[in-house]
């Protein structure tokens, strides 16, 4: 790696010494521990909750249920349909019924056992298609049917397109429930504040401002009464958003009841049972192509299992509808996606957010189409793939940024020696009976930030001190991805100083404006821009103060570099430190708020047309693997990943995002699946839910492409999510290359390879009460 571009992570010291405090590491005076009682059934009426006996146990300080929620009973990022404490009904096996606050976790366990809940079991639905039947009971009373969302997209005339096609292929794909499996489980401490009806909440909370809304709403107090303070985050990947609001509400109701700080840390089992998963999709693709490989039409029909709550299903499925036909020019498109309610564990945000499912399907399909046409998948992608000025399925012209899809593909092909390896493996496979080698490619485009989901703006405070050191505080949160370091680097670059001069303050909703959620790979692009704007305001104020000292005739002559402030005309210079001191004694405000609002985007929900996102990123990955056809084991020997990041502001961090995303993508494609049987999760800890270990793959080769984007800080844009969305289809294509047969469901586990299907017990489509 280029040593000059290596940046030292600014929160590295505390994390390698054990000094970094995560929420579970915090203790408060008179603090109690909390635990949640969850539903015994996947769908049931709650007739009575009797906790008299629990209260008799020594060390139990309070038991709460829905009755104790002082404000509204529901929260929700998009629609208020989620009950932190089940009210009347439990809709899935992870629903909270009651919570206890006790002197120890052990006493909590005994208290939970002493609570007697009377249920009336209701018919439950575990299958999306069962849920859509007219005669099926409606799971969520506030909706007209079990179809919670529907997004269509219409372009051109698909029937016409299929008529003019030489080859029409129809394929059905299925994807699974997936667990985020951040190593830190969810944790919150709710502390009653000094002022009346005020609470401070510490936690592993990905989106502190979103959580604040939910807590204020359920506690029945104004937003200002709730302060959310983010502790160090032990990973999130989209998983600590509304799930954390649920937990924060539960802890806060306990804190109100007992008037003491209450700490709730989920065990791994609770973490897996309670919180949302990645949506399983059923995807039906129909594609028409002409002999020369030009795609004439695509028809896509998708169903996403939302589980018992809406959570982020509308936004997740919306992203799917925008990107369903992939990075390809298609004249005639008809796409529909439905989000379906079931009594399964609910599904929500997870790195990728509706893209890993569709990319798995569409990129597998592209290879199969190419095969039928007698060409390589790469050739088909070159014919149809986006180039500068191409038009998307929603008729957005791709301009104003570099459309680097071909560049990403070229680079990853070159690095992996794709075509030569294909030839080599053909020879190898002809001789080898047991082991088969294969190589596969996939590519994608991805809309950056929130797009037409909603308001997209964020802020940051850059506070320069009189000695030249700097505080930074932004509205977006460090979840492990390296945001503190990237934002500090952006500010440091404006001042021409080293990143080690910056400190990043803890995220606290009391001190920084609501800048939206830390999601959608929007931090560098949006938050980074806000930091840059803030730093530039301060820089210009400092310039004004040092103009006289530097004898500058124009402020434009003053530059900040290498720790100095320099008049480029007369070469007069002072230390940055000195300049800050001058500005400070000049009475200048050398703290500023930077605010960045995204360019306007638009979406017509009726026909699914419009400029969905203001800029896009492009990427391509290749998997090279060996299949052991006797055991079914697949080992990815080498993975190659090319991503256009605009500008790799934090180069070390950029590589880390790619390595991490690729490995998560391997888990998604090869062995991760939350086993939900009749509404209950069977693999509730990491001994049965497998995430990749260091020994489960070979080497990863990242390729960083930098085409600066005019909307990003110094051209930087999104990376976190693109890295995870490509590996499953690259693997699927490589397996097909190795074995000469195709699979249509992930994960491609051992039994799928050996027997052609998963050997899982089939779950019921529904249950009779």
């Amino acid at each position, binding site marked *: 790696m280029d040593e000059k571009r290596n940046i030292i992570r600014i929160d590295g010291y505390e994390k*390698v*010494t054990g000094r970094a405090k995560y929420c579970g590491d915090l203790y408060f005076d008179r603090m109690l521990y909390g635990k949640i009682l969850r539903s015994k059934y996947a769908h049931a009426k709650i007739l009575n909750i009797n906790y008299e006996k629990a209260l008799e146990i020594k060390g139990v300080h309070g038991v709460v249920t829905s009755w104790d929620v002082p404000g509204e009973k529901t929260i929700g990022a998009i629609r208020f349909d989620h009950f932190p404490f089940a009210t009347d009904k439990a809709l899935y096996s992870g629903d909270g019924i009651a919570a206890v606050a006790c002197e120890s976790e052990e006493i909590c366990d005994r208290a939970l056992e002493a609570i007697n809940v009377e249920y009336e079991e209701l018919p439950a639905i575990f299958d999306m298609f069962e849920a859509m039947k007219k005669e099926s009971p409606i799971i969520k009373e506030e909706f007209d049917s079990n179809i919670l969302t529907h997004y269509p997209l219409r372009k051109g005339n698909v029937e016409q397109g299929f008529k003019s096609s030489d080859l029409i292929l129809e394929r059905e794909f299925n994807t699974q429930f997936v667990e985020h499996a951040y190593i*830190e489980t969810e944790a919150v401490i709710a502390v009653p504040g000094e002022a009346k009806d005020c609470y401070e909440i510490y936690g592993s909370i990905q989106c502190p401002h979103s959580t604040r809304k939910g807590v204020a709403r359920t506690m029945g107090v104004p937003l200002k009464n709730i302060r959310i303070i983010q502790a160090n*985050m032990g990973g999130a990947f989209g998983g600590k958003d509304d799930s954390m609001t649920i937990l924060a509400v539960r802890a806060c109701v306990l804190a109100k009841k007992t008037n003491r700080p209450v700490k709730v840390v989920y065990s791994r089992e609770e973490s897996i049972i309670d919180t949302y998963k990645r949506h399983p999709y059923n995807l039906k693709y129909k594609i028409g192509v002409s002999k020369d490989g030009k795609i004439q039409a695509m028809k896509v029909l998708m169903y996403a299992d939302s589980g018992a709550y809406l959570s982020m299903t509308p936004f997740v499925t919306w992203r799917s509808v925008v990107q369903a036909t992939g990075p390809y020019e298609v004249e005639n498109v008809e796409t529909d996606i439905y989000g379906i309610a079931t009594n399964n564990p609910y599904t929500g945000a997870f790195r990728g957010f509706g893209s890993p499912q569709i990319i798995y399907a569409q990129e597998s399909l592209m290879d199969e189409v190419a095969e039928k046409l007698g060409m390589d998948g790469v050739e088909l992608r070159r014919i149809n793939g986006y180039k500068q000025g191409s038009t998307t399925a929603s008729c957005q012209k791709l301009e104003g940024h570099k459309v680097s899809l071909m560049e990403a593909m070229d680079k990853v092909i070159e690095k992996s020696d794709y075509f030569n390896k294909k030839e080599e493996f053909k020879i190898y496979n002809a001789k080898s009976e047991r082991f088969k080698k294969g190589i596969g490619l996939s590519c994608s485009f991805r809309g950056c930030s929130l797009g037409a989901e909603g308001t997209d703006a964020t802020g940051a405070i850059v506070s320069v001190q009189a000695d030249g050191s700097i505080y930074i505080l932004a509205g977006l949160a460090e979840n492990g991805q390296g945001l503190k370091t990237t934002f500090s680097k952006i500010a440091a670059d404006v001042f021409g100083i080293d990143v080690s001069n910056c400190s990043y303050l803890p995220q606290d909703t009391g001190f920084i404006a609501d800048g939206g959620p830390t999601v959608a790979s929007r931090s560098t692009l949006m938050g980074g821009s806000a930091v840059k704007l803030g730093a530039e305001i301060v820089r210009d104020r400092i310039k004004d103060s040092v103009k006289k000292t530097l004898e500058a005739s124009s402020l434009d002559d003053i530059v900040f570099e290498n720790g100095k402030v320099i008049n480029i005309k007369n070469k007069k210079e002072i230390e940055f430190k000195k300049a800050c001191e001058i500005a400070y004694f000049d009475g200048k405000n050398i703290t500023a708020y930077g605010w960045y609002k995204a360019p306007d985007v638009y979406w017509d929900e009726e026909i699914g047309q419009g400029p969905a996102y203001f800029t896009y990123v492009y990427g391509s990955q290749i998997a090279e693997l060996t299949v052991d056809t006797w055991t079914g084991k697949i080992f990815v020997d080498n993975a190659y990943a090319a991503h256009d990041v605009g500008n790799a502001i934090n180069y*070390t961090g950029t590589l880390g995002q790619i390595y991490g995303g690729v*490995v998560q993508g391997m888990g998604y494609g090869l062995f991760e699946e939350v086993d939900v049987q009749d509404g209950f999760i069977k693999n509730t800890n*990491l001994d049965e839910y497998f995430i990749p270990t260091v020994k489960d793959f070979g080497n990863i080769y990242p390729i960083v492409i930098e085409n600066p984007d005019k909307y990003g800080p110094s051209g930087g844009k999104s990376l976190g999510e693109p890295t995870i969305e490509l590996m499953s289809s690259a693997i699927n294509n490589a397996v097909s290359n190795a074995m000469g047969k195709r699979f249509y469901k992930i994960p491609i586990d051992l039994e799928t390879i050996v027997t052609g299907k998963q050997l899982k017990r089939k779950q019921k489509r529904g249950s009779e009460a």
Partner: protein
Amino acid sequence: MIIHIKFKVNGVDYDIKTENNKRLLDVLRDDLRLTGTKEGCGIGECGACTIIMDGEAVNSCMVLAGRANNTEIMTVEGLEKDGELSTLQDNFVKMGAVQCGFCTPGMLMSAKALLMKNPDPTVEEIKEAIAGNLCRCTGYTQIVEAIKKTGEENR
């Protein structure tokens, strides 16, 4: 039942009374407030609670408190000497081996235990030593590189 444990943690002698049903992990975190050691699964699968006990890397969630009597323990808090990071820690920071940092203490202790026995390990030996430490952020690559570099600097 209350038990009496005498042990050495990061070079400091402790003589404590605690409940016999506690795990060593709880004693370190709750009794000694050495919260650098983390809990990720509670069943010995993720390695976040790895500490070094009498020279061996062990999952402290799988060790009952009483078993720690008369042992010598090192936790992540014991790696830094006189306010200076050890080479291993320094390489973790410099080489991007840390993202969210939650697996980091356990990862460091597994690596430290390896380096104590094998000062300049191969990549395969490193992978074997940290195979019981799960990381969801980094894809492990930079972790392996940081440990490898530390070994090379030990030459």
